[in-house]
């Protein structure tokens, strides 16, 4: 009788930051046979997410995800991180789910398993040959999380470990609202004092009492923080957050960002009107909203107008534009083209850096996060729609990985090492 031999499955490192790579390896398998590598994650909302790849063990009885090809599953080809970025809700889940971590002080836990054969379903009904657990963290050890509530401005500040002082970042998400901390947390893990700003509640885009002063005050909270270098504060915005960044960089007399990172933002802005009025107005252009055969809302045409846009020629700081070419929420590429033309005409083309990602959608996030083509979105407090964000999973994931690297290099260049030669004459 053959004694049971368990395969040796390992994930290295066992604990990592969310943007770090890992190596998944299985040894001690019989050679030349089919196996499935599977990852399983239980979200804070109690939904199960999974990804899997089909492999054939080599002559050594080994499967190495970073070196071997996946022949099928939720990802194919040589994809070291495929078990993370191709994650999707398990069959039977609710529609329109989005995986977002609220509690960034604890890690995301993934169970990585190896199964015999090439499975595509029924993972719960079959015992894996081996399983391990890996932790993925937004916060590096020593990063401090501080709740901020100064007058009406609210959010969370993340401070890196060490004596400081640090360059700062105002971090803003889009019109979906709420307090989203995870990007600020990972930015702090890279050495930036990062302030995740909450400015509206979900569903309040068209109704919130919100003035531009709110954002200027938030920026100054970062700039005036005792552990922040005051002339090295930048802005990081996605979607509507990018629009706010455009405004602050071009029109504000109060704040002077050192640089801006803007992902898929639009430039529509009517002076003299509050944000709520502007958003309300835009959303009333119902004829411009397209709805596809699955009832998903496509908003990109709402932002194509060239009336009432920000004066981008007034921008005086370096700006990095990241555009998803398949963004169905904001016509990111067309808007970036306009910005580029405007800034070049004003002799400010040297301030602009832009990267277009083919096949990427609206929600370009931290690497190895799953891709969301459609998710539920609160258009108002009572109205939930299915929002089409766009993108195809593989090119979108490549865009997340590549853009993050470029963004970190960009921030490092402008906020860490840019020399400021001061004459002593």
């Amino acid at each position: 009788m053959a004694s049971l031999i368990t395969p040796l499955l390992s994930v290295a490192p066992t604990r990592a930051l969310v943007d770090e790579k890992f190596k998944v390896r299985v040894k001690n398998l019989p050679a030349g046979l089919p196996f499935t590598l599977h990852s399983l994650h239980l979200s804070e909302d109690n939904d199960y997410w999974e990804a899997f790849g089909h492999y054939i063990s080599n002559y050594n009885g080994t499967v190495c995800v970073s070196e071997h090809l996946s022949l099928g599953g939720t990802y194919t080809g040589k994809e070291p991180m495929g078990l993370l970025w191709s994650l999707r809700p398990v069959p039977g889940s609710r529609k329109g789910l989005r995986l977002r971590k609220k509690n960034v002080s604890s890690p995301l836990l993934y169970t990585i398993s190896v199964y015999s054969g090439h499975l595509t379903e029924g993972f719960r009904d079959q015992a894996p040959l081996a399983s391990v657990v890996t932790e993925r963290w937004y916060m590096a050890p020593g990063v401090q999380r501080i709740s901020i509530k100064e007058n009406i401005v609210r959010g969370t500040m993340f401070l890196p470990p060490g004596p400081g002082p640090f360059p700062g970042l105002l971090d803003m998400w889009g019109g979906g609202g709420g307090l989203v901390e995870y990007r600020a947390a990972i930015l702090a893990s890279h050495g930036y004092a990062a302030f995740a700003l909450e400015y509206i509640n979900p569903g309040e885009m068209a109704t919130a009492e919100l003035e531009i002063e709110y954002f200027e005050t938030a920026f100054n909270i970062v700039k005036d923080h005792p552990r922040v270098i005051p002339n090295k504060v930048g802005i990081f915005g996605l979607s509507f957050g990018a629009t706010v960044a455009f405004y602050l960089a071009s029109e504000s007399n109060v704040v002077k960002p050192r640089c801006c990172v803007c992902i898929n933002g639009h430039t529509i802005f009517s002076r003299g009107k509050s944000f709520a009025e502007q958003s309300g107005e835009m959303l009333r252009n119902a004829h411009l909203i397209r709805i596809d055969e699955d009832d998903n809302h496509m908003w990109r045409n709402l932002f194509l107008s060239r009336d009432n846009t920000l004066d981008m020629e007034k921008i005086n700081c370096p700006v990095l534009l990241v555009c998803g070419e398949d963004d169905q929420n904001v016509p990111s590429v067309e808007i970036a083209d306009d910005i580029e033309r405007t800034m070049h005409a004003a002799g400010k083309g040297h301030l602009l850096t832009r990267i277009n990602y083919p096949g990427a959608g609206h929600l370009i996030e931290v690497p190895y996060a799953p891709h969301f083509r459609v998710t539920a979105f609160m258009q108002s407090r009572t109205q939930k729609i299915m929002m089409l964000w766009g993108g195809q999973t593989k090119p979108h994931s490549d865009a997340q990985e590549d853009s993050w690297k470029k963004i970190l290099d960009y921030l490092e260049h402008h906020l860490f090492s840019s020399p400021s030669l001061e004459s002593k004459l």
Partner: protein
Amino acid sequence: MICPIRMGMSYECSVLLSVHPSRALVDEKFKVLVQNASPGAELTVHSHLLSEDKHNWEAFGHYICDSTGSVNCKSLTMYFSPVQFSLFYWRARHMLRKSNVETPLEVTVSVYQGHLTEGFPEHRALAAVLVERWYMAPGVQRIPVTEHNLTATLFLPPGPGPFPAVLDLWGGGGNLVEYRSSLLASHGFAALALDYLTNDLTITTGKMMKNDYFETAYKFLEQHPQIVGSRIAMWGLSLGTAMTLKMAAYSKVMKLRCAVCYSGSHIQPVNGSTEEILNNFLKNQDKTRINEKQEVIWHDMGRVQCPLLLVVGQDDQNWPAFVSAMDIKKMMEKAGNIHLLTLLVYPDTGHLIEPPYSPHTRASTFRSFESRELYTSLWGGQTVGHARAQEDSWRKSLMFLREHLYGRRKKSNL
């Protein structure tokens, strides 16, 4: 993580310090990278740890930045090739031991301007990060065991199993030392850390454990539903080695798949208990050499039937491990089972060969088991050689266990 430096010409720059991975198992290497300093600048990379028993440990290395203003250190506790390097400069004569293996060691890694050797708290660091060093991988289960009067802790790897297992014995210091077992479980081996000197039964009865205590532990593993009963090994350090060698040679109950023995010897009474072994050790404490005319029997290592890995330090000042190892080799050559022996002898290495990247302790306070008095025990070893021995022997021990506990044994059908 950074601090602006104002240098001669009002040129502001900020030093970037990063350590990867920031949360690692204690036996994983980590990389330290310093960037954005001035080319040719002198820097000190420093690590500091406050242990559970509130002692300060530190290490540091002196570096000179390259032309891009960067320094890339492979691992702080490894001898790299900087200008001047000091491995682990301990400030107190204590052993770095972690009792609670479920929480990590927290090490602060900092970079200072210039080549400093002391007074670190008085200087302002250019940058600092925190690194966690874990003894347990995620998903490893820690299960206290008290059945059958055992005092032990079982560590199970994550996953369905079943797993091969290791019976893990420490040395004469007693107490339940768990961190080697938790690391083994993090590498896929079920591991039972067994207390055999200060265990409940010894304390309540006042009697030392006999062989059947160890055999009970073995049977516990053999019968465990998540353990492959035919794939159990034993791993001993120091006094634990004496027990391991004895079981491997004589036990009728234990069918060990293989055994790993660190810094021990095979000089024991055959039918004696732990008490007698210790008595013999204490009787001969004043002797610095092995005397042929001892009243003990030297174990017949010719009787060992399983693969045996012996790890000894040539500078072991505590047990005559090296001489014992040479004798074991001779015995096994004579008996014809030498093919079972793998012998690793490390120069400049002392007695306490622990998992890698642990600080080396040349001498430390040890509580005498008999008298409960504190005395300083000289363990031996030179720091760099000892650190290398820890890294190399750990890697080879894991490979040895993988080969014998996970490998497919070819069975002859003759």
